[in-house]
């Protein structure tokens, strides 16, 4: 019975939150005279950004590319693995066990080994982004694929649908809402993965910018990178939500919302 919210009403509250958080932060920093080396004020961060806008934007771009590549690969392989898990009784446990094992290893610990094995190109960063993002996609897709009403499968079987058709025409569409939940979690994790990768070995990207800023005790510079990360993360997440809305207008979670 709710009417559809317009773009403004959708994003205004978020924006207001953001702005008030920033203002509050500025006031606190000034009031308590917090040293900029500990916590710089938003205005300091803003000024810092405009000292080298192209540097920050370039590095943000580098991180964005790694994030998207990692996310994309995680989406493709994650959904693929979920399909394998759901389709094959034989492969289910092995694949799942391997995945859980892989996911239990903190990538931060593995990252140095990755660099040792793969060098310092974009590959280890993408690999880390993929590894971090893929798990949520697999788990959510598996849930989605398994939550199909058995009679819907029966409907397709009566139409003599092939296993492939049951997958693409019944299971996957049914699983889309779950898949999107996984993708929304994954896009954030891919971003974090990219940064972790850049921490370990890279000479560009926001992860690199953060590290060098840390090395110089340049807290304002560090915060510029963090702010850009927040902006990027929010943008990517909202983008995913938009795609979700366009892709599954038929689902209760979108309809009733």
């Amino acid at each position: 019975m709710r009417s559809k919210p317009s773009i403004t009403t959708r994003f205004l509250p978020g924006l207001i939150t953001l702005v008030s958080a920033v203002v509050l932060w500025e006031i606190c920093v000034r009031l308590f005279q917090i040293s900029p080396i500990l916590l710089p004020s938003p205005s300091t961060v803003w000024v810092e950004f405009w000292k080298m806008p192209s540097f920050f934007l370039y590095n943000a771009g580098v991180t964005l590319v790694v994030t998207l590549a990692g996310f994309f690969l995680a989406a493709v392989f994650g959904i693929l693995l979920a399909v394998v898990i759901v389709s094959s009784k034989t492969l289910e446990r092995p694949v799942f066990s391997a995945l859980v094992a892989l996911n239990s290893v903190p990538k931060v610990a593995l990252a140095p080994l990755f660099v040792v094995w793969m060098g310092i190109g974009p590959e280890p960063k993408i690999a880390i982004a993929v590894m971090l993002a893929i798990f949520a996609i697999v788990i959510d897709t598996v849930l989605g694929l398994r939550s199909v009403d058995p009679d819907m499968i029966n409907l397709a079987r009566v139409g003599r649908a092939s296993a492939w058709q049951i997958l693409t025409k019944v299971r996957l569409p049914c699983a889309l809402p779950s898949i999107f939940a996984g993708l929304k979690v994954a896009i954030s994790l891919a971003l974090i993965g990219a940064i972790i990768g850049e921490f370990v070995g890279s000479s560009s990207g926001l992860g690199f910018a953060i590290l060098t800023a840390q090395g110089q005790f340049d807290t304002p510079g560090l915060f510029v990178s963090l702010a850009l990360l927040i902006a990027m993360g929010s943008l990517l997440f909202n983008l995913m939500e938009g795609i979700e809305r366009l892709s599954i207008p038929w689902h209760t979670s979108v309809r009733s919302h």
Partner: protein
Amino acid sequence: QGVEALSARMDFAPWGVQAAMHLAQVKGWFKDVGLDVDVQDGRGSANTLQLVNAGQVDVGQVQLGLVPQARMKSATVRSFAGFARATDLAAVVDRDSDYKTVADLKGKSIVCFAASPWAPFIDYWLAQGGLDRSTVELLLVDPAALWSTYTTRRADAILSTGPSIIPPAEAVRPSRGILASDAGVNFPSYGLIASDETIEKRGDALKALVASQQKAWAYLRDGNAGEGAEAMIQQRPTIKLTKEVLTRQIELTIETFETPATAGKPIGWQADADWNAALASMEKANAIPSGLTLSDIFTNDFIG
């Protein structure tokens, strides 16, 4: 005669110890010796050593004291030049505090990072002052958190290297170092490493690199530290480097260049005596077992 490509990875984010590399780059001294050197920032000496060992980079500039340990763990890297031949590991404390020796830190908090070259020596070092982990508060934090922990006075001392920490601390917490060697921890500092394979096959390139570095360090030593700082700032325009800090770091680094055993020897030349002393203190600290051969650790073959 073409130029030969060589990748050289530093220890950490840019700081004074790396000045000779950047200066050689700016002055064209690499080109002069037929090299095209790619100078990379690092993520810690240990990490750089791993990368050299794995063949991902050709040369590393690291804390050489790590080499014996790595060698014990079946790494195949050796040092082929040692610049900062005296120990620079130090417990950095407030300049006007009255801490003079390890023993003075009783009951105090000390911060370090777990992967630090300091780590294996901490217990031995504390023991020299009659202390142990129960009589001091030892904080092990991420390298990135090291600095803020010290400057916000959450710790009374920071276990690091004097030349890297003391200059930037000047502005926020004026400090001085209590050298690790005062308590018998003799730990050779910065120099260059390469894998056995590189040393065997690319001797000419290494020799050329050493030559360029000797030239650069000599130039820096002769009152031109400021130029080194400028070279770094020029090479790393996006990083907020401070000339004064860098200059001081370079100067402090150069102060660690001479040991009695290397007096009069060329820059980068390493003495058996220094290494024997180093190995002895490492053995005492249980960081390595005995029986390492010096030729597995370093070579002076490329010092011209």
